């Protein structure tokens, strides 16, 4: 990173701890409000969901247990095109946003029925409307001719889409730095000391001060939060991903389990495992992922796989984000979620504005306070 050539400034108006998608989006948004922002990143050893994720901008089904989560997700999906345009226009990097809708493919009738019930219940909770459609196999085949015969159907979400998360990250760093932001490879932040309205960050590579601090360190927030009086009971949940060779486009919409990138690469995933901080892969899970993908798209049967990896989701006990300012140390904020891609536009927009100016977003952030875990 070119930034390491410059020596990092000792103090900033706002410090963001964590240089993943969440931290970068928030840093970029706060910077737009005219504040001087520094992102402190642990470095390449960081457990980085931003690098291992599936790249979906996904709305359907999110927030089935918390209407505000559904609202902020949909808000972000609406703001996404603006974020993508801004990044592409100013960095020249095409982050490959495609938002023409997405499908959640169900293999069995009961799976489809269960999903239909969940989305119907969500629609009840959202008087503003909650668009979705249930498709049987024939209707699904009209949209995706190469879907397999042993499929019950799918649910369609018109607001869903996908993006290239690596280009997104690259573009965010470029944009942030071009606007004067500093991205500092600080090593681990070991301690945060609140000090007469300021915060002192003691990192492996130096000590820095700031007026406001935003904790966006993913799983690291669990340790960092209590230093500023915020509980963040996050735990890792591993997802494994299979990458197939580039083939001519045949999957025209992203699905919850399989998507095809602009380049033709087929990405398969959506396993969930509680295995601590292990980012490895296992044959049996990869086999399950492959089997489901082949049932969905039989054409994949003979396709070569070129890569696989494991990455850790950052999960709260109810799966929903935490957005919280410290009551004990005002000026300290914690942000955590497991959908850094989907929520990118909310983070760089209304959430960043809330942190920078105190402006309340249209979605009530009270619902995301960590106190809900103490009840």
């Amino acid at each position, binding site marked *: 990173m070119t930034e390491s050539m410059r020596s990092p400034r000792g103090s900033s108006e706002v410090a963001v701890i964590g240089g993943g998608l969440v931290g970068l989006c928030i840093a970029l948004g706060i910077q737009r409000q005219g504040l001087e922002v520094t992102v402190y990143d642990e470095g390449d050893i960081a457990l980085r969901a931003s690098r291992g994720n599936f790249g979906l901008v996904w709305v359907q089904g999110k927030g089935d247990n918390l209407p505000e989560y559904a609202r902020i997700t949909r808000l972000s999906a609406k703001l996404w095109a603006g974020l993508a345009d801004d990044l592409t226009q100013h960095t020249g990097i095409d982050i490959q946003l495609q938002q023409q809708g997405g499908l959640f493919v169900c293999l069995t009738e009961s799976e489809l029925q269960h999903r239909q019930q969940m989305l119907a219940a969500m629609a009840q909770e959202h008087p503003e409307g909650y668009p979705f459609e249930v498709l049987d196999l024939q209707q699904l085949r009209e949209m995706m001719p190469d879907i397999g015969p042993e499929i019950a159907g799918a649910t369609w979400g018109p607001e869903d889409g996908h993006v290239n998360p690596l280009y997104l990250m690259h573009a965010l760093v470029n944009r942030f730095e071009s606007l004067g932001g500093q991205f500092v490879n600080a090593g681990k932040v070991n301690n945060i000391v609140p000090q007469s309205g300021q915060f002192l960050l003691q990192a492996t590579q130096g000590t820095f001060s700031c007026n406001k601090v935003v904790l966006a360190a993913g799983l690291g927030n669990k340790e960092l939060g209590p230093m500023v009086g915020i509980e963040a009971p996050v735990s890792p949940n591993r997802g494994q991903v299979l990458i197939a060779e580039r*083939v*001519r486009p045949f999957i025209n919409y992203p699905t919850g389990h399989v998507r095809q990138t602009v*380049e033709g690469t087929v990405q398969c995933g959506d396993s969930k495992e509680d295995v601590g901080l292990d980012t490895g892969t296992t044959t049996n899970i990869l086999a399950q992922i492959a089997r489901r993908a082949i049932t969905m798209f*039989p054409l994949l*049967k003979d396709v070569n796989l*070129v890569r696989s990896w494991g990455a850790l989701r950052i999960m709260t006990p109810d799966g929903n984000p935490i957005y919280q300012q410290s009551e004990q140390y005002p000026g300290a904020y914690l942000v955590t979620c497991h959908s850094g891609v989907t929520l990118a536009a909310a983070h760089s927009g209304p959430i960043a504005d809330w942190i920078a100016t105190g402006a309340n977003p249209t979605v009530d952030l009270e619902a995301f306070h960590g106190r809900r875990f103490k009840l």
Partner: protein
Amino acid sequence: MVEDLSFKRLPCNERAAVEIVVEGRKVIAYEGDSVAAAVMHAGLRPTRKTALSDVGRAPYCMMGVCFECLMNINGKANIQACMTEVREGMVITVQQGARELVGEIR
């Protein structure tokens, strides 16, 4: 097809000759040759066209890592030529762009 005969065989233990077909042309290779080595020795360039920009490529790492040597071997697309040994009568063609799935099975 560009002919480039810059590769020469070094002396080694005697091996049985194997006849293969490279882009419709009969070529003599030797048992134990990889397809990548055999087609390079036969002067075939490029050995594939890239999936996105249709640019010519040829074998590079020769050890199964870089995927530059993908070819169509006996009708199967995107096979790593450096990891495949020649067999009598093998039919080898240049991999033209991204693999086409539609129509392969449907």
